[in-house]
């Protein structure tokens, strides 16, 4: 994917980002890391088109992110699973496919089965979100994001609300998607996952991009801020 951020400033909640600029070509999995409030989640939301920046422009694969074409080309996974609780895991997928993509019932059902299977949920599709574990629900929400066949999947700290065991379960589910041909932009605090899964890392602090590069920057941080971050996070 190609990604270009020009002179972007924005405030969301307590996060403020300030005059960001970056231009990336041909990466498949871009990680954004940093402490809470560093601006990484805001940047993710801006790139997903969920927020409009007060200043500047963002383009992904040559498209301005404010266009509805961009929205329709992405899948999104949030900190909590965001499944519709009155629908089974499978219905969560088929509803989206039938109503927003105009896909016929049978085909939608087949796509749902395929994607649930990809996330090892083949036998859970008939259950309501409240009757599966947090990890399974989050994996179902990843399956739902995949099922619309997006170009890029955005993951906003997908394991933030899970315990370590469920975190592993969800992250290994995501790692299996490396060969799926999809691109990813994600925020995560799990550095081992960032190392394995990302081919580019953006480190943010206080609303600025402090360091960026291949995951090697994690092993040889140049700035004192990233050094400090690495010493505190596993």
């Amino acid at each position, binding site marked *: 994917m190609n990604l270009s951020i020009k002179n972007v400033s924005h405030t969301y909640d307590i996060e403020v980002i300030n005059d960001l600029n970056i231009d990336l070509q041909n990466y498949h999995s871009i990680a954004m890391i940093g402490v809470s409030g560093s601006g990484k989640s805001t940047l993710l939301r801006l790139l*997903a088109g*969920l927020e409009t920046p007060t200043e500047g422009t963002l383009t992904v694969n040559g498209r301005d992110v404010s266009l*509805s074409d961009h*929205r*329709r080309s*992405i*899948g*999104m996974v*949030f*900190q*909590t699973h*965001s499944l*519709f*609780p*009155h629908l089974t895991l499978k219905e969560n997928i088929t*509803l*989206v496919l039938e*109503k*927003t993509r105009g896909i016929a019932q049978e085909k939608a059902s087949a796509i749902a089965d395929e994607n649930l299977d990809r996330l090892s949920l083949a036998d859970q599709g008939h259950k*309501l979100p*409240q009757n599966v574990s947090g990890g399974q629900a989050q994996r179902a929400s990843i399956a739902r994001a995949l099922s*619309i066949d997006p170009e890029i999947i955005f993951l906003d700290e997908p394991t933030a609300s899970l315990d370590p065991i469920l975190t592993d379960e969800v992250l290994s589910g995501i790692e299996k998607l490396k060969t799926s041909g999809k691109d990813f932009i994600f925020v995560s605090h799990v550095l081992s996952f960032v190392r394995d899964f990302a081919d580019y890392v953006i480190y943010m602090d206080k609303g600025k991009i402090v360091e960026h590069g291949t995951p090697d920057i994690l092993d040889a941080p140049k700035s004192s801020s990233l050094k400090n971050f690495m010493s505190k996070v596993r």
Partner: protein
Amino acid sequence: MRNKTLNYSAAIGLFAVFIIFVALNQATPFQIGRLESYGGLIIGGFFRTILVSFIALVGSMITGFILFLMAKSKNGFFRAFNDVFTEIIYGTPLLVAIIMMAFVVGPAFNTYNRPVLGVIGLIVYITPYMANIFRSAFKSIPEEQYLAMDIFGFTNVQRYIYIIIPQVIRILMPPLMNNFSLIIKGSALLNVLAYRELFYSVSIMQSRTFGYAEGYITMWILYIVITIPLSQFTRYFERRWSLQ
């Protein structure tokens, strides 16, 4: 399971024994037969209680929804109106609300139909409680679900039909049933307006037969016959349908 049944039977039995004890220890002998020729009157009152309560339920759902929209409105006056109205109602006893409506507010508008005014009083009184349950029902859909709807590109109509309303109804049902129960109990106060609901019907019977204890116990049991199944149904509904 068997233990549970036993415990509940014992608890219910204890209350039954208490009622029988109280009934048999009246100054005048307890003769349920006194009610006999007033059965029709009391049953009529019973159904009128259900009818007015149902009207008040539907009415207050409508006014409550309007008040909820006002509270959510961008218009500052509407929000202020909601705050002031809610505070006033919270501070008012239901009996006072009904009497004010029937004897003070109604006449000011040249209306003297007391039963109708009484029901309006009941509706006005329940309105902020209804607005509250609408508020909490809509609030219980987390922001991330709305974001997900955005990202997937659901239209506004689709959002309501397939996602919001099916959830809100399930969340709304239990507190709505609780409010219905509140209304049924509150409707007993309409007797002060000489409206022939259950309470007033029983009073008529009592004044003619002097069967006070018989009347009150019957009335009490009849209220419970409506409200307890309602609360049991609500619990069943919560167990069966609630979404976490």
